[in-house]
C-alpha cells in the first residue's frame, strides 16, 4: 500500500503542481511575457513534437553584383549579347505593371529577360571597338570634301548585301544580288543615241531622279553578277551609238517626239492653202504650236496656244476675253 502511495506520490502528487502549472499556463514554454494574451492549447506538447522535416533549400551564394566594384570595366563583365541575368547586372531594375503595389524587382522577372538589351554595347565599349577598328581604316580623302565631288569622281554606286548565318549553311542566296546606280547625264550621247539608249534601258531609267538602276541576279555568285552588270553598262552604251540598217525604217508611229515636217499636219496645211508650207505666212508659228502641243501633252495652255496660232493662220479674229 505504501508502495502504491509512494508511486502515486512520485508520479502524481509531487508532479501535481508541475502538471497543474502546465495545465493552466499559456504555453508549454513559460516565458516572461507581460501583456500577453493567454492562448488555450488543448493539445499537449508531445503532439507537436512530430512535425515533418522541412525541406532544406540548397545554399545559394549571394549575387555577384554585390561584389562588383563601382569602377569596373563593364565591357569585360558583359562581353557579348546575352539574355538579362539579374545577379550579374548590378542595377536595381524593376519592370512590370501592377495595378496596386510596386513593379516587381529584377530577380525572377521574365519581362526583363524578354526585352532586348544592349548591355554589351554601352558607349565606352563602342568607343573601344571603334578605336580597335581604327587601325584598319585609312583617313577620308581630303579631296572628297562634299557630296558633289564624291558624285563627280565616283559616279557609279554599287550596292550589295552580305549575310551571316549561324545555321548549317553559311551561304545566303540573297547575297548574289548586285545593284548598280548611275546618273544618265554622266554618259555622253547625241539625240539619236540617247533615244536608243532610253528605249534599250526601258523601265530601269527613272525620269524624275535621272538615275539608271541595273539589278543583276542571274549568276550564282556576287562577283559574277557584278561583272555581268559592268558588262551590261558597257554594252548598252556602245549599242546605243551603233546604227543598224533597219533603223531607217522607223515610222512616224515609232517616233518619240513629234516633228511637224513628217506629219499629216503639214500636209493638211499645204493642201488647205494649196501652197508649200514655206510660202504660207504664219505657218512657222503654227508649226511650233503644234509641236509644243504634241510633245508637251495636252493642257489648257498648249491648246490655247494652238488655237491662237490657228486663228492667225486662217485669218480669224482672236479670242475675246469676256469678264
Amino acid at each position, binding site marked *: 500500500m505504501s508502495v502504491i502511495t509512494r508511486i502515486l506520490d512520485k508520479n502524481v502528487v509531487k508532479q501535481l503542481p508541475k502538471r497543474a502549472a502546465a495545465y493552466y499556463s499559456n504555453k508549454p514554454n513559460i516565458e516572461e511575457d507581460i501583456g500577453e494574451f493567454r492562448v488555450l492549447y488543448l493539445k499537449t506538447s508531445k503532439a507537436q513534437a512530430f512535425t515533418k522535416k522541412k525541406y532544406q533549400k540548397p545554399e545559394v551564394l549571394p549575387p555577384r553584383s554585390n561584389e562588383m566594384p563601382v569602377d569596373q570595366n563593364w565591357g569585360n563583365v558583359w562581353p557579348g549579347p546575352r539574355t538579362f541575368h539579374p545577379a550579374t547586372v548590378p542595377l536595381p531594375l524593376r519592370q512590370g505593371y501592377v495595378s496596386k503595389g510596386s513593379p516587381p524587382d529584377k530577380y525572377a522577372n521574365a519581362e526583363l529577360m524578354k526585352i532586348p538589351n544592349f548591355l554589351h554595347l554601352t558607349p565606352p565599349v563602342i568607343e573601344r571597338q571603334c578605336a580597335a577598328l581604327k587601325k584598319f581604316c585609312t583617313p577620308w580623302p581630303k579631296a572628297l570634301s562634299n557630296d558633289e565631288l564624291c558624285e563627280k569622281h565616283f559616279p557609279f554606286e554599287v550596292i550589295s548585301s552580305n549575310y551571316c548565318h549561324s545555321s548549317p549553311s553559311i551561304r545566303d542566296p540573297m547575297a548574289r544580288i548586285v545593284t548598280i546606280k548611275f546618273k544618265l547625264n554622266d554618259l555622253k550621247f547625241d539625240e539619236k543615241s540617247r533615244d536608243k539608249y532610253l528605249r534599250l534601258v526601258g523601265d530601269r531609267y527613272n525620269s524624275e531622279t535621272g538615275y539608271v538602276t541595273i539589278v543583276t541576279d542571274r549568276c550564282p555568285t556576287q562577283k559574277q553578277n557584278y561583272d555581268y552588270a559592268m558588262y551590261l553598262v558597257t554594252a548598252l552604251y556602245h549599242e546605243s551609238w551603233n546604227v543598224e540598217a533597219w533603223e531607217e525604217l522607223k515610222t512616224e508611229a515609232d517616233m518619240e517626239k513629234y516633228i511637224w515636217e513628217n506629219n*499629216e499636219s503639214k500636209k*493638211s*496645211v499645204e493642201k488647205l492653202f494649196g501652197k508649200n508650207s514655206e510660202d504660207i505666212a504664219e505657218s512657222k508659228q503654227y508649226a511650233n504650236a503644234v509641236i509644243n502641243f*504634241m510633245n508637251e501633252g495636252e493642257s489648257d495652255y498648249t491648246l490655247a496656244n494652238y*488655237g491662237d496660232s*490657228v*486663228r492667225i493662220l*486662217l485669218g480669224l479674229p482672236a479670242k475675246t476675253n*469676256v469678264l
Partner: protein
Amino acid sequence: MLKVVSKEVLGARLPKNIRALCVATHSQKFRTSEDKPSYHSSSNSAQYYKIPQDIRNQLFAHGGIPKSYNIQTKSFAETCLMVREPSLDIINCIKSIDYSKPVNRFVLYGKKGSGKSLALAHVVHYGLETGHLILHVPWVGQWMRYCKEYSNSELKPGNVDINLDAANWLVHFKTQNAHVLSNADLVIGQDYVWSKREKTQKGAHILELIEHGISRVKYASSCVLGLCMEIKELSKKGKCKTMVAIDGYNGFFYPKTRVYTEKKEMVPPSKVTVTEGFLEVTKFDWNNAVCVLTVDEIASAKEDQLSHMPKYLLGKEGFEHLDPFIPVAVNEYTDKEFTSCMEYYRERKWVQPAPGQDEELSFLSGSNPYKLMQICAGL
C-alpha cells in the same frame, strides 16, 4: 426710269401689268429681250434669251437640246439659253469668215456638263437666222452606242447600216431646213441607183432624195451619205451656205461601238455607212460653209473617259482629219454667269431664295452647270 418708279411704288397696290413691268426691269440683269443670236454681243454675256417656241420646234424637235435640259424647259414653260462666251466667240468668227476660203472647223471642248451642247444649239439658232443650211447631228453617241437597228449594207458591201436612225435624222434635217429646202436651185448632181427599179435622177431636187430616204427606210443610210456629198457640191458651187453642227464628233473615231454585224461582231465607226458622209463634210476641201463640232467624253465608254481634251478624244486619226481646227473651250460658270443662272432659277420659282445660297452652291457644284442643275432640282 422705270426702276426709279418701281422703288417708290412697289409696295402699293398696282395694276398687274405695271407690276409685271417693274419685275421685268429688275430681271434685266440676267435676261435679255434680244432673241436673235446675230445681235448678241459681249454685252449680253451671261444673260438668258428666249427661243421662240416655233423656232424651237423647228430646230430641236428631234434632238439638239440635252434631255435633262429639255425637261427643265418643260417645267419652266419656256426655252431659254444663256449667252456665253464660247458661242459668242464662234458667232463672232463666223461673222468674219470669208466664204470663198476653205471651210473653218471649230471644236468645242470642255468637262462633262459644262455646256457644250447648248453652246452648239445657240450657234445652230444663229445659223438658222442667217439662212444657213443646217446639217445638224444632235448626238453621235445615239448612233454608235444606242442604235435602234443595224443591218448589213446592200449598196456598200462590208459596211453596216443604221437605217432607222438614219431615217429619223433625215426627218430632223427636213424640219430644220424647211425654209432653205424650198429653194428650187438645190438639185442633185448625179444619179443614185438604189435597185433595179428605184433610181433618183440627176437634176432632181434634193428634197426628193430626202423623201426617198424617209419613205424607203432600207436605203436611208445611203441617202444620208448621198445627201452629204450633194450638199458639199452645192456649197462649192455657191448655191447655199452650210453650217455643219455635230455633237459628240469624237464618236466617229472611238474604236468601240455597239453596232454589230449580223454575226454579232463589233463594227468600228469607219464601217458604218453614215460615218463616211459626216467625215467628208468636215474636211476642208470645200468652201461656203462652216463646221462647228463638239467633242465629248460621254461619247466614249466609261473606262476610257480619262480626259476631256480634244486630242485625246479624237485620237491620232481624228486629230489629223481635223487639223488645223480652232479649239474653243467651254468652261465652268464664271461668277457672273453663276449669279445669272441662280437669278433665273429664283425667278422661275425653281429654287427658294436663302441667304448665302449662291456661295454654297457655287462651291458644291464647282460652278459646273450640269451639277448645279442637278443640285437645284432638289432644292
